[in-house]
């Protein structure tokens, strides 16, 4: 009898604690990759995002009292495993998965329909399907901050600036060396369109996955003698490209990398060959931003950080993950403000939150992230929200930001986005939303 009573009390206590904890939690899956050739990107980005959530939990007790929780799942940068992780994580937590960061263009593609059907927003920050920026056709997909196409136009703009005006690009030779995958092929239509507009010669050279053999590609580049080379690589392909360029005598200062080719992990293995190499970025590296100091103070000082190797703190991938954390938690805040402060929100409410996200300069200052990321204003029409890109240069020891935030060619990008989205809508029989009716 006595034991029964004790057991009952215990059960009740456990049950009670369980429900209390469950009610005030916001679950965010951390489906990234910690093993394999792309592990630096996955663990860095994932680490930054988790570090930011951990800091919010430690400093503010979550968002309006709602603790952020997460669970890691290994996707191996593999579509099938990514889908498995998504299915595993989508029902966890009191309200299911809030939002998914797939961190892989391939997985993003695989999730577009599944997540839309499940009403779980997908944030593909700086990767994924560019035309998802048209929120009328892709209500649940958010290629936030900036897309591949915006980036491609900014790259051409940068080259124009260096040449002394966009009209000076006429007759220039530009080569794009790309990872032969959906990711690598994404910018080619935009670069081709711009080549017609500005009159430069574009040569596209594919590098088969994983890209650890590029001798013939760079010999071809040596024959072409281009004015600029755009490097659209990923993982081991990047340092290999820089080394191969040095071998054929092509200067690193004439190579512009995409933001997935512009992390410390991409240049350090190339050694001296990487010095002077330029890359684009939508986040700046560094540990001096106030928000990074907060993470240092509330997380790392208590030995709770994600990185065992402290030198990765403030690296490109790490701050990119922090930016992802900021975007996610700010959207949760927006959604809570509408659907009930201090309560966990559902994926559907989160979708509204992201769509109405507005991180202006003032808010950036409050967050301590001025210069770390550009201001963002998302809308039903525009799921990109910013489009701004910065350039940075590797000086042999660290990345130095060399430009301010640069504007993309919005008109060109938007026209192509709408064209591609309309084709998708037609193929799938989707009627685009009427944005004037959204509230």
């Amino acid at each position, binding site marked *: 009898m006595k034991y029964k009573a004790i057991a009952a009390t215990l059960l009740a206590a456990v049950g009670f604690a369980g429900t209390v904890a469950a009610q005030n939690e916001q679950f965010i899956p951390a489906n990234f*990759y*910690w*093993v394999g050739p792309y*592990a630096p990107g996955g*663990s860095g980005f994932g680490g930054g995002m988790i570090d930011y959530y951990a800091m919010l939990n430690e400093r503010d007790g979550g968002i309006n009292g709602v603790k952020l929780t997460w669970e*890691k799942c*290994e996707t*191996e940068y593999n*579509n*099938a495993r990514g*889908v*498995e992780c*998504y*299915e*595993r994580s989508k*029902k966890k937590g009191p309200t299911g998965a809030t939002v998914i960061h797939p961190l892989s*263009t*391939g997985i993003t*593609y*695989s999730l*577009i*329909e*599944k997540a839309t*059907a499940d009403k779980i927003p997908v944030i593909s920050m700086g990767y994924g*399907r560019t035309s998802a920026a048209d929120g009328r056709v892709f209500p649940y997909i958010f290629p936030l901050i900036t897309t591949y196409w915006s980036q491609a136009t900014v790259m051409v703009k940068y080259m124009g600036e260096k040449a002394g005006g966009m009209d000076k690009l006429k007759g220039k030779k530009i080569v794009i060396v790309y990872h*032969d*995958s*959906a*990711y690598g*092929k*994404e910018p*080619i*239509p935009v670069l081709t369109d711009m080549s017609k507009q500005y009159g430069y010669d574009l040569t596209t050279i*594919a590098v088969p*996955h994983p890209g650890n053999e590029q001798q013939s590609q760079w010999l071809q580049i040596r024959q072409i003698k281009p004015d600029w080379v755009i490097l659209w690589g990923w993982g081991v392909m990047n340092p290999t490209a820089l080394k191969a360029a040095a071998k054929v005598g092509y200067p690193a200062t004439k190579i512009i990398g995409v933001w997935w080719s512009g992390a410390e992990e991409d240049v350090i293995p190339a050694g001296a060959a990487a010095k002077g190499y330029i890359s684009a970025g939508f986040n700046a590296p560094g540990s001096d931003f106030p928000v990074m100091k907060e993470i240092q103070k509330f997380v790392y000082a208590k030995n709770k950080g994600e990185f*065992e190797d402290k030198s990765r703190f403030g690296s490109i991938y790490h701050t990119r993950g922090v930016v992802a954390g900021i975007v996610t938690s700010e959207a949760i805040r927006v959604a809570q403000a509408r659907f009930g402060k201090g309560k966990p929100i559902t994926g559907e409410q989160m979708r509204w939150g992201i769509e109405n996200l507005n991180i202006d300069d003032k808010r950036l200052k409050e967050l301590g992230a001025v210069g770390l990321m550009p201001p963002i204003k998302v809308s039903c029409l525009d799921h990109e929200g910013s489009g701004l890109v910065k350039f940075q240069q590797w000086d042999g020891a660290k990345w130095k930001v060399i430009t301010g935030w640069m504007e993309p060619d919005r008109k060109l990008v938007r026209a192509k986005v709408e064209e*591609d989205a309309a084709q*998708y809508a037609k*193929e*799938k*029989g989707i009627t685009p939303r009427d944005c004037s009716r959204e509230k």
Partner: protein
Amino acid sequence: MLYRESGQFKSNYSEDQQIFPIRQDRIAIGVLLVVAFLVVPLVGNQYWLSALITPFLILALAALGLNILTGYAGQLSLGTAAFMAIGAFMAYNAELRIPHMPIIGSFIIGGLCAAAVGVVFGLPSLRIKGFYLAVATLACQFFVLWAINRVGWFSNNSSSGVITAQKIVIFGYDVVTPAGKYLLTLSVVVVMALLAKNLMRSETGRAFMAVRDMDVAASVIGIPMMKTKLLAFAISSFYCGVAGAMYAFCYLGTVEPEAFTLDLSFRVLFMIIIGGVGSILGSFLGAAFITLFPIFLNRGSEWIAEAMGVEISHAIVSNLEIMIFGALIIFFLIAEPAGLARLWQITKEKLRLWPFPH
């Protein structure tokens, strides 16, 4: 005691020739099918159905295709993923370009296109064998992916080369739920597995095995080499093509050519090596081992870490998973080189004698 054929008399030829001659086997298969068709869709949750069982069935079908070629006809191939890619992209194109195309029709078109390519790349098998043939099929793997990447027609000129599978409609009914997709996959796999099982008992199957065991002897006793080998390539590629189409339509939904890399070809090859070369059951066991086991290891290590109350870094868990998996593959290959199917066979023999082994 329970599993014994004594007392089961065959009184005519058709009884003697049935697929499962032992009554207990028939009952077991019947129960398995009832469970698979009725119980699993009711009991299984979304995660199990769409993330574990459906991909397992699809890859089992691909492994079955490779097993017909490698296990039964003795022709080593590394082009499985390429045939799957052809199936996926051609089924997509069939749905896209032919109005009112039923989905099963698209799967068959995907399979037939894969079979046609399989025959072309099977031609070298008439002159070369073993590892050299594997290299020739490797060319197929690279060529097909290259062609799909380069020729815009395959992906309907999508700038990124990605295809999005169309809605599955069967008799005006939209198959969107995981259970619906699972049942569709299961039906296709069961029918094709049954066909394969029967094929292997037929004259064609026996010709395949004769070629596998010694092709000179086979040609001496009058088995046409060219027809048999090319037929093996065609049937095998057809199976792989249908598996690829289902991989796109029933599982991933949106597919880029990179989903069908050499890596996948190797995985399917490992499936039949682990499961059992030259065995229908082995294809299923191998697929289960290769696709499901890493996920169980991954989750299992999480549970163990939780139960023990220790916090293990996620990177270590992920790496451990790969190491344990690799070690287990080596263990199985040493303990039972003929694969898991052989283990099952031994169990069956032991069961027949149980409880009085002599």
